[in-house]
């Protein structure tokens, strides 16, 4: 009797303990997200956005339509393209370098802790500090551009953060075609696979083929049915000015992936390595065949965290290139400018929601995955 009572009391205390946090998070995270979504459907900021008595009207998806096809928002569309490249390079660069450093350090030679400390120190600094430093390193007439002169070559004149050049340009008008073409390509592999493996059910085969066919059809003929996104050509591509930002970000974060991988490698027990050696594996084979496949869950965590950091590049870009630099733009900076400089709160909220949706695409599956892991 007593112990049941005690248990109930405990639960009551437990609930009371977390209640303030739950309420705070409920309001400050979920409530605020709801509010921002609501704001993104209004016209707050057009006209009298700064008056003391703000009036807002519901305008539906107008802000989103503006962002994707309004002709003044070309910068936002370039920002989205930049985001793809920023994320790609940050992820690719840090994972590769991090793994490389981790393998180098895994051999536990002398001074390992010194090396580790040096590879990881940029993580302790803020993006503003490192951004300030890198800005100086990448100044057009000094820093990195002088390095070739050490080898007697003429100095480079690459405009790190202010170059207007871009490569891999595509026309925004036909973006949907590209998307469907990529979808078709992605679907092609499992479809072909499903025909070769007898196990797959007919149902699955059919649904895969149908979605492949539809994507292909859309990719080829969609533009004949629907008007293009924009009334005129608008080219977007990979801005070379973003390279400098990517280098700085990789410099700062590869120590982090190194630490993750190193912990993972150390977590593999010595016996695994021993048995691999007995099986005649050399070092290289050990890493490729045994260690790296075992690091998969760590790679997954790293991808999630880095993807989320790449969406937060705000600070680094702000310090390195300035908020106004359109070539290195990012939706997070655009959101700040739109909201706090141009007073267009509703449009700023829409950009925030788009950022949030991109982040949620990564995070929600991950949260569900770890949640299941905990409950199991």
């Amino acid at each position: 009797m007593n112990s049941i009572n005690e248990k109930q009391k405990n639960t009551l205390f437990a609930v009371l303990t977390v209640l303030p946090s739950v309420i705070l998070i409920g309001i400050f995270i979920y409530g605020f997200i709801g509010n921002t979504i609501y704001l993104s459907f209004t016209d707050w900021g057009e006209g009298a956005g700064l008056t003391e008595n703000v009036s807002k009207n519901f305008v539906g998806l107008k802000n989103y339509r503006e962002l994707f096809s309004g002709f003044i928002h070309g910068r936002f569309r370039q920002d989205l393209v930049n985001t793809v490249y920023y994320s790609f390079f940050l992820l690719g660069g840090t994972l590769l370098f991090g793994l490389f450093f981790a393998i180098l350090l895994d051999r536990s030679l002398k001074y390992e802790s010194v090396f580790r400390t040096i590879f990881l120190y940029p993580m302790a600094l803020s993006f503003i500090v490192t951004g300030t430093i890198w800005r100086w390193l990448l100044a057009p007439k000094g820093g990195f551009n002088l390095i070739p002169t050490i080898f007697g070559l003429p100095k480079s004149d690459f405009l790190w953060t202010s170059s207007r050049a871009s490569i891999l340009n595509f026309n925004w008008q036909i973006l949907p075609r590209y998307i469907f073409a990529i979808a078709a390509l992605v679907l092609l592999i499992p479809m072909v696979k499903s025909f070769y493996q007898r196990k797959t059910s007919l149902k699955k085969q059919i649904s895969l083929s149908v979605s492949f066919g539809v994507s292909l059809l859309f990719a080829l003929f969609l533009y004949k049915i629907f008007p293009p996104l924009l009334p005129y050509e608008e080219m977007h591509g990979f801005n070379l000015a973003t390279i400098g930002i990517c280098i700085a970000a990789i410099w700062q974060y590869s120590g982090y992936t190194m630490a993750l991988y190193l912990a993972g490698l150390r977590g593999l027990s010595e016996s695994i390595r021993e048995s691999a050696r007995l099986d005649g594996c050399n070092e290289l084979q050990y890493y490729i065949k045994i260690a790296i496949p075992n690091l998969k869950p760590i790679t997954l965590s790293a991808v999630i965290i880095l993807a989320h950091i790449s969406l937060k590049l705000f600070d680094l870009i702000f310090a390195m290139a300035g908020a106004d630099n359109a070539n290195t733009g990012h939706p997070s900076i655009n959101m700040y400018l739109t909201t706090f400089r141009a007073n267009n709160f509703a449009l700023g909220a829409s950009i925030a929601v788009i950022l949030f949706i991109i982040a949620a695409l990564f995070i929600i599956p991950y949260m569900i995955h770890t949640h299941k892991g905990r409950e199991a």
Partner: protein
Amino acid sequence: MKKNGLKILTASLMALFLILGGMTFAEGQKEAPAAGKAAAPSLEVELTNEQPTGTLEIFSWWAGDEAPALNALIKVFEKNYPEVEVKNATVTGGSGVNAKAVLKTRMLGGDPPESFQVHAGQELIGTWVAANRMLDLTPLFEEQGWMDVFPEDLINLIGTENGIWSVPVNIHRSNVMWYVPENLDKWGVEVPETLDEFLEAAKKLEAKGVTPLSLATTWTVNHLWESTALGVLGADDYEALWNGDLSWDDPKVVEVWSVFDEVLSYTNNDAASLSWQQATDLVVQGDAAFNVMGDWAAGYMMTTLGLEADEEFGWTASPGTNGNFMFLADSFGYPKGSKNPAATLAWLKTCGSKEGSDAFNPLKGSISARTDSDLSKYNTYAQSAAKDFQSDRIVGSLAHGVVANEGFMNDFSTVMEMFLNSRNPQQAANACQAIAIQNGLYK
């Protein structure tokens, strides 16, 4: 089963939070049904003779080279009102872009500074006056006799039908082209007067490996554009652009963009990473021949670099704009909700006074907005500018907020970005037409 029920419960709780969150804040914000902007009556400032005390926070973007001028003005204020503690809140960043963002968050946050720097003209009117956040200063102007000492054109520009909104502290000229006479002699180039002459000289300079025109970060590109537009269009058509008489997709405007394209081809390629001072440095150091910049560049060259005006550097109206004075003015306004009204008033009085104005402007490198200022306190450059101000045709600047509201200025910067990438004059002109309509330039 039970577990599922729990999940559904939590999910619906979460949804409830989302919706409630959306609703409650939405409720709180849904005041005043779109009551039209002009409907609210403007409030006049209340004059008082109370001796000001307490603190006075002055918000501006005058830091670095421009700080000494502000400090001189503050010194005059402190001498006259020793009881007030002045807090000088500056936010750096050329032409005030960062400062304006910070100011907005503060005003929206219900925390206005006692007085803030703002470009006189549409920038103030289109933003803060339209939002009904400023007090009408007409009584102050009448009391201080400023109606007579400030030029009438200027008062018209800083006011609307409903009142006068700020006290101008200075006048700057935007359409000035700077050079080093000695270098031009060396390169065998004459100072160009028209755009054609300029382009010819530029070709010659480029052949000699000299950058013909130095340029800096984004806003200086807009600055160059307005001078080019004035040069191509002439004052009448330039003004017609702003009062809606000349359409932005007119062939004349397309012509402005194509000339601008040609001018840009003679600028340094690392412009975007330079500050305006660094662009001026390029001219001073002999790496570039000309620089089009407002006359704060004179202050920079004389005060910071210690150069002798008219000898170590020279100036002329930017190509094709002779006889025109494109002006911009900094001013201070009185935001509603100032926590120290007496001190705000005292500060505005100082800004408009002869003593304050003549302490500030010689250091800032600008001229006084007052017609009775003591020219002997000013340098060679300012004296010549003051003379031009009296005789030239006066037009307003775009890049510095005199002729267009902030919405247009913001969008114009975007169009400029587009143009810098595409270099397509017709497209830029069409884009400008669209943003002009969107921002109510054709009323």
